[in-house]
């Protein structure tokens, strides 16, 4: 009974969500087609759709997508390596945890985007400054979750393994790693999400290529319909990437 009711509730809320989006698009259409909203400020959704089809068919988006994804991959790889390594070493000593955890948590709350001008000075307008920003911003959730994962493993598990003769490697492989894994994974997902945000954002501020750059370029050329089409494209890409990350996280945690 309750399973069926759960399903019904789910369908009901889903239909409200879909209805809301449909209403929004309908308002958008009516506003631009009949209520005289400026087409330069807000293009007609039909035009946007036509532009999106053109972008996808021509493959024009490919170079920019490649730039953005490469920046993301590089930033995420660096912050994973650095964050997990550093987090593990800090987690090995209660003293280091006491010193560094609050410090890193403090840095985490700094709006890192403010470092973009500095990074542009250091690394130029190209991918370098985007990678640096993405790395900086995703490093903190990863290192903090790694410290939390390895540093707060229940002592009884360690004592039990020690009493049965576990070597240092076995302790790591069979006790610390599986205990910390789900927590680290959450950190990786959070890091990934903010890295993507930071890279797209910084591309819109100061860049030579990338999806964010393309969107600003179109806005400056007053090609708002095409710009909206690109925004929709990026939203879909971002949603796909984040869903893939969340799915990976859920899969790995399920046991």
């Amino acid at each position, binding site marked *: 009974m309750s399973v069926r009711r759960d399903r019904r509730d789910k369908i009901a809320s889903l239909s409200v969500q879909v209805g809301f989006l449909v209403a929004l698009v309908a308002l958008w259409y009516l506003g631009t087609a009949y209520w005289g909203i400026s087409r330069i400020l807000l293009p007609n959704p039909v035009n946007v759709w036509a532009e999106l089809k053109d972008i996808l068919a021509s493959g024009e988006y490919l170079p920019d997508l490649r730039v953005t994804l490469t920046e993301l991959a590089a930033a995420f790889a660096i912050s994973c390596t650095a964050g997990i390594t550093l987090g593990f070493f800090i987690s090995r000593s209660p003293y280091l945890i006491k010193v560094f955890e609050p410090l890193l948590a403090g840095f985490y709350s700094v709006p890192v985007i403010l470092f973009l001008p500095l990074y542009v000075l250091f690394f130029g307008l190209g991918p370098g400054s985007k990678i640096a920003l993405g790395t900086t911003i995703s490093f903190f959730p990863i290192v903090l979750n790694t410290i939390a994962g390895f540093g707060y493993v229940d002592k009884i598990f360690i004592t039990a393994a020690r009493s049965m003769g576990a070597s240092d490697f076995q302790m790591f492989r*069979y006790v610390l790693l*599986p205990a910390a894994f789900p927590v680290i994974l959450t950190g990786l997902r959070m890091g990934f999400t903010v890295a993507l945000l930071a890279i797209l954002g910084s591309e819109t501020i100061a860049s030579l290529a990338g999806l964010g750059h393309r969107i600003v370029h179109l806005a400056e050329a007053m090609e708002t319909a095409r710009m909206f089409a690109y925004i929709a494209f990026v939203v879909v890409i971002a949603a796909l990437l984040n869903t893939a990350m969340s799915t990976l996280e859920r899969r790995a945690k399920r046991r």
Partner: protein
Amino acid sequence: MTTGDVAIHVRDVSHQFGEPGDAQFVQALQHTSLDIARGELLCLIGPSGCGKSTLLNMIGGLLTPTTGTVEVSGKPVRGPLPHDIAFVFQENALFPWCTIIENVKLGMVFQGVPKAEQEPRARKALDAVGLKDFMGHYPAQLSGGMRQRAALARALSLETGTLLMDEPFGALDEQTRMILGEDLSVLLSTTGKTIVFVTHSLGEAVFLADRVAVFSARPGRIKEIIAVDEPHPRKPSFVTTEKFSRLRNTLYELLHEEIRKAVEQSATVVA
């Protein structure tokens, strides 16, 4: 008792946490000596904080005594001796990310049992504690009593001469404790293991033990050792005998005063 019969030698051990004068200084156990015979089941009972778990951890090599020495099977204990000593801890010591049989096998991996032997030994141990049908379950899917059976199976599969149990049934309800105690008595009577068992329960101590060591309040020392002198495996009806009540009453009288002292101590600490 000849020396050949002694499995565990405890010589004049003390343990303190911190240094005298520290705010955190605690004299957990002072100058305790004890011989435990091979195949004997000894219960340690006493008020909270009297050092009975400390003594158990020192026997098992998880804590180093401040003074004195411990020998198990003639070897001085300086750290864990996984081939001689197995532990059963309180409820939560199974690895939650492993199934029950993986938990048992992992113990053998740590101890260094050849891979081919792990599976049959794990199955045998789980069968012995009645968990044959739950080998593929995760600890979170089992009741507290079943988890403790699994923890016992993990310890049994290690085939050590000595088993140290630190309030293994402490987190369980009275009925589950009773059944597990009865099963444990039957199971252990066939293994010939030397067992040290820490408990808070007077009835559990009398029902399981060959001897019961009663601790005084902190700083802990052994106040008296009571022999139970009843063959294993013990029948459930042992609980209803006059002998059982007499022994239980003796323990109660010995403990009552110490528990009161311990409670007053903790009250002063708070004040």
